[in-house]
């Protein structure tokens, strides 16, 4: 984004490298190779790439679930490697891909209280915050229900709410749209926008390019442990060479625009959705 220079840097990744040890003596798997990135406040960043490109490995360095082989991750001026995971929880929220791995309480309300209790807040504060979160995420009507019995979409929202309750500045969403219908995706997307407005930095790891193109401000493309591009969705998705290297298929609107641009350079490189594409095509006289 053009104004990213003025935004406050929340997290910084410096020369990060991670090697998964395999067996004794062998070299191990080089999952991250010299990654340098900066993340700004009030921004939705999508990290995309094939399976095994290092997206999740990168993300797990932000709250200390993985420790760097070399390099640093700095959050709010402090090195993550020197801090405990449970300590990082109030700064970095992480919503896992499968909500079943996170939910264990008897009720949705308890689930939201769990993180707050871990932060050792006072009972009155916990109550207040729980009510606030239940309202914010529209979970009030199901607050007394058992999370396990809920549908996949709602479970995802509960998991998200339970993490957001701890008020993290940075929020990681690992594959938020897997197994979600259109309604669930829209709901999660809107929640992401809402949290961004509230001043949070959001990072989405996803294979859902439509979702990324619609909600992300910035896209980081990874292949084989390296960041090969970092830019706005329109820049990234119209760069065919990068898309091919990362084995990513851009959303169809961008793919159409790329095809047209091959013959006609004047086709604008803008943020596209179906309506805008149709309008631009009509203007060009390609759609009658």
């Amino acid at each position, binding site marked *: 984004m053009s104004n990213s220079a003025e935004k406050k840097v929340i997290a910084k990744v410096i020369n990060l490298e991670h090697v998964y040890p395999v067996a004794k003596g062998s070299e191990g798997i080089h999952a991250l190779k010299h990654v340098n990135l900066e993340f700004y406040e009030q921004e939705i960043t999508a990290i995309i790439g094939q399976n095994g490109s290092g997206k999740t490995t990168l993300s*797990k360095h932000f709250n200390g679930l993985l420790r760097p082989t070399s390099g640093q991750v700095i959050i709010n001026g402090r090195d993550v490697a020197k801090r*405990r*995971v*449970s300590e990082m*929880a109030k700064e970095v929220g992480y919503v*896992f891909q499968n909500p079943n*791995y996170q939910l264990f309480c008897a009720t949705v309300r308890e689930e939201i209280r*769990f*993180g707050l209790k871990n*932060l050792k807040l006072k009972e009155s504060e916990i109550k207040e915050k729980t009510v606030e979160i239940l309202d914010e995420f529209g979970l009030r009507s199901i607050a007394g229900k058992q999370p396990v019995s809920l549908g996949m979409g709602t479970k995802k929202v509960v998991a998200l709410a339970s993490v957001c309750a701890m008020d993290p500045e940075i929020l990681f969403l690992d594959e938020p749209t897997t197994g979600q219908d259109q309604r669930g995706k829209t709901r999660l997307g809107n929640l992401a926008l809402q949290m961004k407005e509230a001043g949070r930095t959001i990072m989405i790891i996803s294979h859902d390019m439509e979702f990324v193109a619609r909600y992300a401000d910035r896209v980081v493309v990874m292949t084989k442990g390296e960041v090969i591009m970092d830019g706005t969705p329109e820049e990234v998705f119209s760069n065919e060479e990068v898309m091919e290297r990362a084995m990513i298929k851009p959303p169809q609107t961008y793919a159409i625009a790329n095809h047209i641009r091959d013959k006609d350079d004047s086709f604008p490189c803008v943020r596209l959705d179906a309506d805008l594409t149709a309008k631009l095509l009509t203007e060009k006289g390609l759609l009658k």
Partner: protein
Amino acid sequence: MKDISLYIPGNSFFHRCDCRVKLLFIAVYTVIAYMFFTPSVLAFLFVTAMVFNVIAIGSKAFTHLMTKMVVIMMFFLIIIHGFVNPVGVTPATVYGHTITLPFFGKYTVEGFYMGLVNWLRLSSVILIAELFVTTTSPAEMMSGFHKIGLPYNFCFMLSASLQLIPISTREANIIASAQRARGLSEKTLVDRFKGLVPMFVPLVVSSLGRMETMSMALESRAFGNTTKPTELRDSHFKKSDFAAAALAIVMLFAFAGIRAVYGSLDIVNQISSIRDIFALSFIGR
């Protein structure tokens, strides 16, 4: 990720051996181990079992989980028996000193003998079982069990649950990460115990879910249509298998003969010091 399965792939004699021969060895060793009550025969079983393991998996035999278990058992059995076994009366002297523990009294020679014999017994059986689990792939194990007459469904259940252990381990790690990311503290031991609930519930729920999915997937592929399905890896007795089985049977009869003639060789009433035990059982009187 650490592999949890006990099987160590290889191509030794025991790897190529039919599963049933190895089961026969376990049976023979168990029977012999419980026929005798003397360190000499049991030490023979112990050493041969260990040698078999080394032949099968090399130096890994010394660092294998089950070998470590045997070592831990040695400390517990020999120490505990020495102090608490009611047979014990003669105090043992270690470099001229007797060892006394409050509430338990003196460390005794008979107690040491009991501990030693029981340890050798159990560890011979454990080591021969180690040979079986490290050299038999889960698929062979399943077909072996089926061939000695266990129902197919039971064998399948056994092998399926063995294969699920690594999956569950991986899942448990993800769950642990998920809860830690939610601020679950792991500073003290109490914290860790409290943390078991948030880890246990998702693990059980997801395991049950997976079982259900798996059972439907199995049924939709005609599982249970027959109780005698064709084997994926059919195994037949080879010459070497017959030879090994014969060796096991010969061993069994030889030791049964010794037992019939000489009894269980129990010398607990003839010993008065730890040195006696070794002198009487290995050198003769």
